[in-house]
């Protein structure tokens, strides 16, 4: 149970950060934290106590022995996909926030979102 709870504490830290931080970079960091927490949770689900990596090597004689020991490969494949999706999103967010920084000169979301309309055009 403890590992699940640690992963969820990490998630909660990220959620707290999303709500309270005002800096765009900090918000992107919070999103990254939430994503790693979720990925960690998914891997924990597939873990087998005392298991081995799901890669068959020449040392193993029997496939059933391998199947009895290896950890679950499906969550690993899913996490691989979600890590990639996460980094794509981060890249996109960084590009958008860089461009906004050029316009407003700050990463503070209050200053960006409550800027006067006349500044925009």
């Amino acid at each position, binding site marked *: 149970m403890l590992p699940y709870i640690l992963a969820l504490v990490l998630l909660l830290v990220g959620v707290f950060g999303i709500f309270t931080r005002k800096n765009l970079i900090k918000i992107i960091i919070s999103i990254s934290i939430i994503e790693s927490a979720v990925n960690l949770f998914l891997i924990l689900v597939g873990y087998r106590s005392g298991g081995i*990596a799901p*890669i*068959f*090597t*020449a040392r193993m004689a029997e496939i059933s022995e391998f199947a009895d020991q290896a950890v679950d490969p499906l969550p690993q494949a899913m996490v*691989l996909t979600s890590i*990639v999706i996460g980094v794509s999103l981060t*890249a996109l967010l*960084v*590009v958008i926030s*860089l*461009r906004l920084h*050029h316009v407003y000169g700050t990463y503070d979301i209050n200053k960006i979102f409550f800027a006067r309309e006349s500044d925009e055009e």
Partner: protein
Amino acid sequence: MEDNRSLIIKRVSRWMAPFIFLYGVYLALYGHLSPGGGFPGGVVVAAAFILILLARGEPAALSKIPYAVAKELDALGALLFLGVGLAGIGVSGVFFANFIQEFLPGQPLEWFSGGTIIINNVAIAMKVAGSIFLVLYFLSVLRISGEGEVGFSSLEEK
């Protein structure tokens, strides 16, 4: 700006870059036997070019991998991946059938095994290398601060 990089960095990067590149190719080609695979392989390949870009400047990097090539690599990798799927329809009649494994099964644990998995890993590596290089290239060339408009007019093609 071009000449304030230290000579050591330039020399070391000249020696390191090919090895990093080879490591990336290895990760992609042996993904079905050992940990690794197309995505990290592609990123490591891109990292080799980024190293050249950062250590030796823009012209050196673009002489190794021009902007247009990176862009095509990105799209071609994706097309190759989709093409493997469509070839599955052509050969075995099923979308994304592993048709190589079906007709030419390799020996498990040898390099030639897994059928289309190798091709797919290479396709993903191409795609990822192209796209990561493009993003980091444009972000590193982007002006850091200053007045006026930012962005690239070269990207506004009609």
